[in-house]
């Protein structure tokens, strides 16, 4: 997880996943690639982070207990309208185990990205790297 060495490029990545093993795997893969990660097990935790800390992007499971990932996005974009780092849909990457055309259409319509599970970590790291690079410019 995020440590004091801060080897990461840019702002940390908020990783929202309710499966603990997958959350650990995602964090390890991202950290091994030089990104700082803030983990969250659900949408409530994620929103608490987003209210206080700037993140470069949000990597988020679609299916979360309670509030799902899409609802999290909608609440997140309403946060901190005067902040220096407002959250917007283009900073969201969703993960889903289901290849559903309606879901993919909804996520694309919001301006977010969708990756399917099982996670292809090479694809994830490439996408995150491109997005973080863009976020820093």
């Amino acid at each position, binding site marked *: 997880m995020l440590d*004091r060495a801060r080897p990461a490029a840019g702002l940390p990545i908020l990783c929202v996943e309710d499966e603990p093993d997958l959350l650990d795997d995602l964090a390890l893969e991202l950290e091994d690639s030089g990104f700082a990660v803030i983990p969250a097990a659900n949408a409530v935790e994620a929103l608490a982070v987003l209210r206080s800390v700037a993140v470069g992007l949000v990597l988020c499971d679609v299916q979360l207990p309670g509030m799902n990932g899409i609802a999290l996005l909608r609440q997140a974009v309403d946060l901190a309208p005067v902040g220096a780092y407002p959250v917007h849909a283009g900073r969201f990457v969703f993960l889903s185990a289901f290849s559903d055309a309606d879901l993919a259409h909804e996520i694309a319509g919001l301006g977010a990205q969708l990756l399917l599970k099982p996670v292809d970590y090479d694809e994830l790291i490439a996408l995150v790297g491109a997005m973080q690079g863009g976020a820093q410019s």
Partner: protein
Amino acid sequence: MTATGKSLLLVEDDRDSGAELVELLELFGFAAVHVLGIDEAVAACGLELPDFAVIDASVGGNAGCRLGRDLLDRSAGAMRVVIVSGRELGADERALLPSAAAPFLLKPIDLDALLAALNGSGGGDLPA
């Protein structure tokens, strides 16, 4: 920034986001304590002042800057105070705590900027 063992008081009336921020600050080596309001903050500083304070300007009915001023005065400037808020500060709040004394950061906070401000190497978001 080397913060191992340095005490930090976070005054934040949002319970959940305060708890998350304290967790993150602890990862950077701070011995961080989170309180929700002015009275709790005053009580926490009763016997010994912390090395650092991060104060939401809006706590206690926009009394965060007043609290920061009081802490700086009590410590004779030895403490480092950072003011944070989801809104711009009012002129009266700026007058209480000019950025040279206590840098200001808009939420959501860039952790690197917060660490720089705590370290005295960042001027925050306010003009000098």
